[in-house]
């Protein structure tokens, strides 16, 4: 089976220009597969956060620990901000394949 036929383990979306930031100075990376939605948020100041939402269970993991509905709200807000302040052609999508 070729890569063209197989499905990526994850699809990761980020700015093609790695130096580009959002208007507030932060950087974000969006990723997803059939099971999870992940958002990586690196603010210009403060703690970097990684939000991982499990589509099936509805649970959210924030920096490796189980999060709350407030974290889900934050994730949605950040994601909306990311989309609203970006254009499709600014992104690059990395489809990740694994050995298995």
């Amino acid at each position, binding site marked *: 089976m070729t890569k063209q036929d197989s499905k990526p383990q994850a699809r990761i979306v980020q700015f093609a220009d790695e130096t580009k930031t959002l208007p507030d100075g932060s950087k974000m990376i969006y990723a997803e597969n059939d*099971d999870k939605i992940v958002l990586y948020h690196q603010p210009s100041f403060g703690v970097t956060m990684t939000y991982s939402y499990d589509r099936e269970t509805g649970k959210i993991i924030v920096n490796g620990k189980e999060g709350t509905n407030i974290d889900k709200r934050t*994730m949605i807000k950040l994601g909306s901000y990311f989309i609203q302040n970006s254009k499709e052609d600014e992104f690059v999508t990395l489809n990740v394949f694994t050995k298995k």
Partner: protein
Amino acid sequence: MIHGSANSSQQLPQSSFSNVNVSNSPLVQKSLNSSGFKNILNCFGIKTSDVSGVQKDFGVSLKMMESFKDVQMIQVNQSKASALAAMGIENASLALVMQSEEEIKLLKKRLKEIKESTLDKKAIAKLLAELGISQNLDSLVFTDETGGLYIIQSQFENL
């Protein structure tokens, strides 16, 4: 070794993208070595060493990123679904959008007030009048005993 292939994406609209081989892509090499990228792969249970290839597409369909709408605050569990069905309310006809547990508590408190005020017909009549609801009070208020959730069936949109 990182390698890729110049193929087309089945997930994303062709018009927005051009695919490239990423064998020598500095962006991919740098990304794979970054802590952020490793964190993300870790969330998917992928070790950097297990990555066999990365295919790069320029652009993205922002529709794909609309997956954020899947991030739900509340899931309708079986008992609530059964209760709604017993009351003749289809799941699709009722949607509660909650932003936080605080808002859920607030709603429960408010609905509890409504239920308690049903003991006083005048009070509930005044309350519902203020909410713009003018139907027969007895037909408006239902109780989901399984979840402690009180639902005003009709005119809910007016709330």
